[in-house]
């Protein structure tokens, strides 16, 4: 089995995505794996004032809190819906070995089809996907 060197984590600032980031950071800390924190940028988000970067706070500090070296954390903004943005991480130049997501992202409703990134990822990914269970806030 190939070693897990690079891990992509879906992140939209939601409680579930923070749980996914913490889980991935705890996995990466002892192994030295790098973390690519992927934020899928929607259409409206392009209206964000220029110069304003990551609006969700310091994900490196969050990962460091889980014992990870923050220099191993990369913040990536990728255009598109969360599923396709994360699936694009599988191919070069990113070539991640594992994808980690929360159960539900921000704005997703409780139905089974619309907005279910985790289900869709599991169906379409060619590499392992970890869906971190929901934890009470």
């Amino acid at each position, binding site marked *: 089995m190939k070693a897990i060197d690079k891990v992509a984590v879906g992140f939209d600032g939601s409680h579930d995505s923070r749980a996914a980031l913490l889980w991935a950071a705890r996995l990466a800390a002892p192994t030295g794996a790098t973390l690519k924190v992927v934020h899928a940028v929607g259409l409206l988000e*392009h*209206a964000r004032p220029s110069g304003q970067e990551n609006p969700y706070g310091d994900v490196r500090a969050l990962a460091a809190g889980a014992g990870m070296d923050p220099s191993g954390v990369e913040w990536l903004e*990728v255009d598109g819906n969360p599923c396709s943005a994360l699936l694009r991480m599988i191919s070069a130049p990113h070539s991640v070995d594992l994808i980690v997501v929360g159960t539900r992202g921000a704005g997703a409703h409780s*139905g089974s089809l619309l907005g279910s990134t985790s289900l869709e990822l599991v169906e379409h990914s060619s590499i392992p996907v970890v869906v971190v269970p929901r934890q009470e806030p």
Partner: protein
Amino acid sequence: MDGVRDLHLEDAITYVGSPEAELEALARVHTTKYLDELEDFCRQGGGDIDPDTYARSDSFTAARRAAGAGLEAIRALERQGEGVAFVPVRPPGHHAETDRAMGFCLLNNVAVSAAALAAKGQRVLIVDWDVHHGNGTQSIFWDDPRVLYVSMHQWPLFPGTGKAQEVGGPNAVGLTVNLPLPAGATGDVVRRAFEQVAHPVIDGFAPDWVLVSCGFDAHRADPLGELALSTGDFAQLARLVRSFVSCPGRLALFLEGGYSTRALRSSTTAVLGTLLGVDVGLEPPTSGGPGQQAVASTESARRLAVAGLEEARCQR
């Protein structure tokens, strides 16, 4: 509609209705599972589908009427055998995929009309000049040799698809044409991209119908895009798509994005005025922006991708 009213052509305009599209017509491009779930979601009151896309209790009906307006416009053109149809509907459609609402879009209006025409044996060209790539339309017709999809768009930008190397599936190699342009690209670059890359493919395809995903967010005043087109450039694009039509009454434009109300209004007037032969005040066409190199790269990347797929097909 202010952009239409600004033409002062009340006597020359026929307004057609927007009946709900039949489920059979929608099912040509969307899965019945998706349609059922979307209807059910709206019936329960709606809500956020993703951070961009919201639905209310009446959104499914509104989306069906938007798709139905396109079908009705096509029927009107078929009856009259002349004229141009403009379908100024909301919600827009070109981001909606077979089983996914996305980017403000619930149902893919232009795809529903194109699929209806294709089902009748017509060859359909879809030109998409919205600043965002029409990922939904591309994926719906990816492997369909009856429909040629040509998209000009800013890249990189939402939705992250639309690279030059995306040229179609094994049954439709070369029938997806993407013209990705850098931020700041001006009208001269857009025209060159169409002439150099898309025109030969369109000539070879010989469409019976031309449908336009007519977004106006490539205008330089738009807050969500960074292309630098003017109303004069949109007028030239209108002349260009009209040149692809082989006989009268076979051109329909479907409104997609456009987030500066002023630019949306003046660009609508520019395009419809040009197609109807009305002299409207236009901003001058633009030139001098970046992207000439991108056009050359697009041409070579596309040629390589098509050759690779055709070689793979021969080896099967």
